[in-house]
């Protein structure tokens, strides 16, 4: 068991810097998910923790030990790769036992560990097969088994579910969560899928362009995104963003003019706003409702409606061209071309400054979803 601490980690490939100083603390036993769009540096960061990439600058500690120049094998980590990376010419058994052969464990212990891992993962009947004779899900389990037998302090997963089909992905996701509960080893998991991040993580690290945008629990990120990027990345469908202008501030309220000359009064953020400053309002589609009950009202034309079964996604186009998505009940009638009214309660409205950072409002800390 071990914690992982990153201090000012930078990584350059040639002249291009891909990680711009990452500070992060992963506590012992935690399940941390790195999430972000492709090319944001999350896989590189994982490979740095694994020891597969050299650190350009900064310090890395695993279990309190300074490991910048320690080879992967001595870091007590095990990594599961997106491509599974099974040795094609070895049986399932040998795939799992291969790394242990060099750990001076003795045949009996190796055999015990392999059989135990196979038992946990339901691989016992497949031990003599070659990887080519396995399905995608089975290969993934062998890859996980190969990590388990090493009994590592830290598990590293690099997009382990990306190559599986949708149904299998959900099953394996649940299995990984269960495995983490049973082994309670520190786990770092990289994905671009925010559902995986939300469901698996104790702590999510949202990354973008080589920087950490926000670190927090899944619900933290959902309810209190630190900036426009996190707000847009977490949640599906994406949060609606609407431009607004500060018209007046007085007695703890800020008056904003939104599209169509619509005005809304919101409790003032903790930071002062200047008059005529442009801000961005953020409202999640699931917090908007049909009708005019909320503090902020919109009227627009329905561009499309998607019936998901449990809900209907209504795509609206406002008079000034702004597009909104409303997650409405499944029985909502919204034919393309029709007029549609939607509104949002003020407690569901996020406020972002011109530079994209979130403006916390006095009442926001206690806010709960509608």
């Amino acid at each position, binding site marked *: 068991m071990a914690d992982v601490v990153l201090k000012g980690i930078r990584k350059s490939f040639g002249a291009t810097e891909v990680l711009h100083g990452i500070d992060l603390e992963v506590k012992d036993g935690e399940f941390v998910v790195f999430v972000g769009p492709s090319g944001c540096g999350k896989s590189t960061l994982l490979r740095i923790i694994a*020891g597969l990439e050299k650190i350009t600058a900064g310090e890395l500690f695993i279990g309190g030990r300074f490991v910048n120049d320690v080879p*992967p094998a001595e870091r007590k980590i*095990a*990594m599961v790769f997106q491509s599974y*990376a099974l040795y094609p010419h070895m049986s399932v058994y040998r795939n799992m036992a291969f*790394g242990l052969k*060099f750990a001076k464990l003795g045949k009996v212990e190796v055999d015990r560990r392999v059989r135990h891992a196979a038992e946990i993962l339901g691989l016992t009947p497949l031990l003599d097969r070659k990887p080519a004779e396995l399905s995608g899900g089975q290969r993934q389990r062998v890859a996980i088994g190969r990590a388990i037998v*090493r009994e590592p302090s830290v598990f590293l997963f690099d997009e382990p579910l990306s190559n599986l089909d949708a149904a299998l992905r959900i099953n394996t996701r649940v299995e990984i969560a269960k495995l983490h509960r049973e082994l309670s080893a520190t786990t770092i998991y990289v994905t671009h899928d925010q559902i995986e991040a939300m469901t698996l993580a104790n702590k999510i690290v949202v990354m973008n362009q080589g920087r950490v945008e926000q670190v927090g629990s899944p619900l933290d990120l959902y309810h209190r995104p630190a900036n426009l990027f996190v707000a847009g990345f977490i949640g599906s469908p994406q949060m609606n963003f609407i431009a607004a202008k500060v018209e007046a501030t007085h007695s703890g309220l800020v008056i904003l003019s939104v599209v169509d000359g619509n005005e809304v009064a919101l409790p003032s953020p903790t930071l002062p706003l200047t008059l005529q400053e442009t801000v961005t309002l953020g409202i999640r589609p699931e917090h908007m409702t049909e009708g005019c009950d909320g503090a902020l009202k919109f009227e627009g034309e329905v561009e499309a409606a998607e019936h998901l079964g449990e809900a209907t996604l209504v795509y609206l186009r406002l008079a000034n061209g702004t597009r909104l998505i409303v997650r409405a009940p499944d029985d909502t009638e919204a034919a393309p071309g029709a007029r549609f009214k939607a509104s949002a309660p003020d407690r569901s409205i996020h406020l972002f400054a011109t530079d994209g950072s979130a403006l916390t409002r006095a009442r926001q800390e206690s806010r709960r979803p509608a």
Partner: protein
Amino acid sequence: MLGGCPQAAPPVNRHRAARAAVHAALILYTLLAIGPILLVLMNSFKARRAIFGDPLAPPTTETFSLVGYNSVLSKADFTLYFVNSVTVTIVSLGAVLLSGAMAAWALTEYRFRGNAIIALYMAIGIMVPIRLGSVSILKFMVDLGLVNTLTALVLVYTAMGLPLAILILGEFMQQIPRDLRDAARCDGVSEYRIFWSVILPLIRPAVATVAVFTMVPIWNDLWFPLILAPGRDTQTVTLGVQQFIGQYVTDWNAVLASLSLAIAPILVLYVLFSRSLVRGLTAGAVK
């Protein structure tokens, strides 16, 4: 993972003529390639008169004769030539495959100063025929005191085979997913172990391909044995055969018999490697 998928058969009707043409061309080529070998084999079992009387006829009970083989095998020297050839070929082959694979691995896997220069240097070795350097090679071997030794031949053949071996093996190594090596590194497998237990087994077809391409020219070479090791004790089969070819009289029975004997080992090795060879040649073509 390196095996190619067979292509789906095209619709029979439309392509029947095209396929017939392809087969005809292939059969013609096969005959052209096999013809001379068959001719040598057939005639080596015939009496001298029959060789000249009807060279294209297979041996019959009347014309059958082992006189050629008798005269070749009765000369003790021939066994020596044979052993020389086998020694030179096997040792050179081993050296080319081992150092070629290791060099290819180093050049493809590790980034170090001069990496590109060395790779380029090796590529030049493919383009420039080694025989152009015969004079300096001979001078060099004289200086080293290696003339008339098998070592001289092994050294030259290793140098001759390395560039192509490195190119082909390196190409195959690049196709092995990076994750596989990384997984092995995380598993605590040493770099040497990764090379021996992960990389080499996966490029076996390529190794077989390189083996055949390296082996055949060495076995058949006449040039370097002639200039570097023409001594009695170091002659190879191809050189040894020459003693039956005189300025005025040529013992054709003996020449054909020794040629047939010289073909045999290479044929056996080829058959052994051929399955892997075909896989090696087509691998990577379909992906």
